[in-house]
């Protein structure tokens, strides 16, 4: 075994260069370059079948890349089998050994590396995840949340350079998932190990990760900090998959300055040139996007009081659903279809009921522009699909 005897406590960086994976004629992952800095919390986000798990498995060594190389902390490990890599995985559904008790599950990695006295370390680890009294139970006697913590303990006890998490919270209910998200984030900050986290849950990715890579069809669509991805999506897929976006088909009528002037149906919209990822010469089509919570509603009678310079669109309320913190409206805008608007429930205007004529308005700074040749529906309704 070529493994270093004394594991480093700090994380290592992961560098993927041109790695791809094909199964017969199907390409699961297109050639991909990716660097995960040491000590960061990195999320691979995408719908099922987008190649995110395959990418993770190539880092773990469970899948050999068809092309390209994997480097861990500066060392090329592309052809190294999983048991010789300083990487551990928290598997989807945990993959706890059913024939071993919790103690032996956690001790498994240490024993395989020939560590003589594992007792102290295992007990400390079990205490860390608050499972000390459960040590002699079998995995199937534990609840989902407890099994998840065993899986984390079993991986972390080896002090890997990188911890890989494959949908680690997918099997838990919503409340427990929230709790475990915070817990995992806390552990990551504490131990300083590089975490690479695969998930289909955009909220989970944004809550936990420093950097998120959104994958679709075997490719990385966009990579960045969560807030950056959310505010400045580069593709319709990212715009629709991360949260919800209103995408409006528009034509550039004036370009050249800091601001583009667009024409959508009969309305004029303004878009900061810096926030348009597509080429936008006069006469070209672009998609103007705006997040529902950035849009405000005003009853048509009060349209005169809207702040000067805001983008405006007239419409009629089609549907309104009250969900506590906010009210979600579906507005029918003539010529543009249906747009979503989320209004905070601070001062509710009693006239904003289905059928009412309204004006939508928002600050041009919140508008983003996308290439109009894309599928406008890409990534919509995908995020809730089970991975």
């Amino acid at each position, binding site marked *: 075994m070529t493994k270093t005897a004394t594991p480093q406590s700090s994380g290592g960086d992961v560098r993927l260069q041109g790695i791809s994976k094909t199964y017969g004629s199907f390409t699961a992952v297109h050639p991909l370059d990716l660097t995960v800095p040491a000590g960061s919390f990195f999320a691979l986000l995408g719908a099922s*079948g987008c190649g995110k798990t395959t990418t993770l498995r190539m880092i773990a060594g469970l899948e050999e890349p068809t092309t390209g190389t994997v480097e861990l902390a500066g060392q090329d490990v592309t052809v190294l089998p999983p048991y010789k890599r300083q990487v551990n995985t928290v598997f989807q559904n945990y993959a706890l050994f059913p024939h071993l008790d919790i103690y032996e599950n956690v001790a498994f990695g240490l024993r395989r590396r020939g560590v003589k006295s594992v007792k102290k370390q295992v007990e400390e680890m079990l205490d860390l995840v608050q499972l000390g009294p459960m040590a002699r139970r079998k995995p199937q006697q534990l609840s989902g949340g407890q099994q998840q913590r065993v899986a984390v303990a079993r991986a972390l006890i080896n002090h890997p350079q990188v911890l890989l998490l494959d949908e680690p919270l997918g099997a838990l209910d919503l409340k427990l998932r929230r709790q475990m998200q915070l817990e995992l984030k806390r552990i990551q900050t504490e131990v300083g190990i590089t975490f690479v986290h695969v998930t289909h849950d955009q909220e989970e990715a944004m809550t936990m990760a420093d950097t998120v890579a959104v994958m679709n069809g075997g490719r990385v669509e966009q990579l960045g900090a969560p807030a950056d991805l959310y505010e400045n999506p580069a593709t319709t897929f990212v715009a629709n998959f991360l949260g919800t976006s209103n995408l409006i088909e528009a034509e550039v009528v004036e370009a050249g300055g800091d601001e583009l002037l667009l024409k959508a149906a009969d309305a004029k919209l303004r878009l900061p040139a810096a926030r348009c990822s597509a080429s936008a010469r006069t006469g070209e089509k672009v998609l103007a996007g705006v997040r529902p919570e950035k849009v405000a509603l005003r009853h048509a009678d009060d349209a005169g009081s809207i702040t000067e310079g805001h983008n405006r669109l007239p419409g009629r309320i089609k549907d309104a659903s009250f969900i506590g913190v906010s009210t979600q409206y579906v507005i029918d805008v003539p010529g543009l279809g249906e747009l979503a608007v989320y209004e905070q429930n601070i001062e509710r205007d009693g006239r904003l009921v289905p059928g009412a004529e309204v004006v939508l308005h928002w600050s041009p700074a919140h508008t983003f522009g996308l290439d109009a040749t894309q599928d406008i529906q*890409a990534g919509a309704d995908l995020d809730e699909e089970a991975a």
Partner: protein
Amino acid sequence: MTTTETPAPPQEQTAAPLEVRKTPARKRLVPYWLLLPGILWLIVFFAAPLVYQASTSIQTGSLEEGFKVTWHFATYWDALGEYWPQFLRSVGYAGIATALCLLLGYPLAYLIAFKAGRWRNVVMILVIAPFFTSFLIRTLAWKTILADGGPVVAALNSLHLLDVTSALGITEGHRVLATPLAVVCGLTYNFLPFMVLPLYTSLERIDPRLHEAAGDLYARPATTFRRVTFPLSMPGVVAGTLLTFIPAAGDYINAELLGSTDQKMIGNVIQSQFLRVLDYPTAAALSFILMAAILAMVTIYIRKSGTEDLV
């Protein structure tokens, strides 16, 4: 999963894979090494003998002079001409025994799967435990149970049932032993567990809530059984009937121990031709016909019942 069309993102590269890795040959050979000894065993001691037997069936000669392949296909016609009653009897007895096994075994499997509750393990043990007394001893026990002066025959006699069965030709006079009834009874008994266990396995997989759902949707218990339970247990029914019919059709123990010369089945003929008469070509031809007939029947049956994935 809907794949959505998106334009190529910026990092898309021209398809120029540098080097494509392949699994090393050593690794690809692992399954063949695992298979080798066992498969070789089956080829040498199962498949090859069948070929050998096929060749024996067209040989002529005698024990003293030895046998030679003379492409003597007449052996087949002679064998069929002489022993067709035994063939028909085998198929008939095995068919009736299989039907009886299904009829008797289904309630028992159902009982274990849905009604036994905490007695389930006990009943299971009672089904399997008899296996551990040699089946020849148990078959001999039927000689006692069905004995001419025994309580069973006495009871059947007092109910005049034996008169009915005699009229139907399945018993003779006032006795059960050495009649078709005894042989079929023994066959049914011997292969009943092979019916009950697969039936139980497939019944046990049925979610009991399906019964409630059917009841909720206005199905009476009988309808629930016909429309829900029985269709879902089909894999067990198919496996059970095969596991019962195939060995029953080739059996010669029940006919030998419980029947008379009038109940000889094809298994008895093969056994005596091979071990007593030492007419190997005839024995080979007969077992070849039996094998072909059973394989044909099994294939048709599996096709008809639509459970090809059974294998």
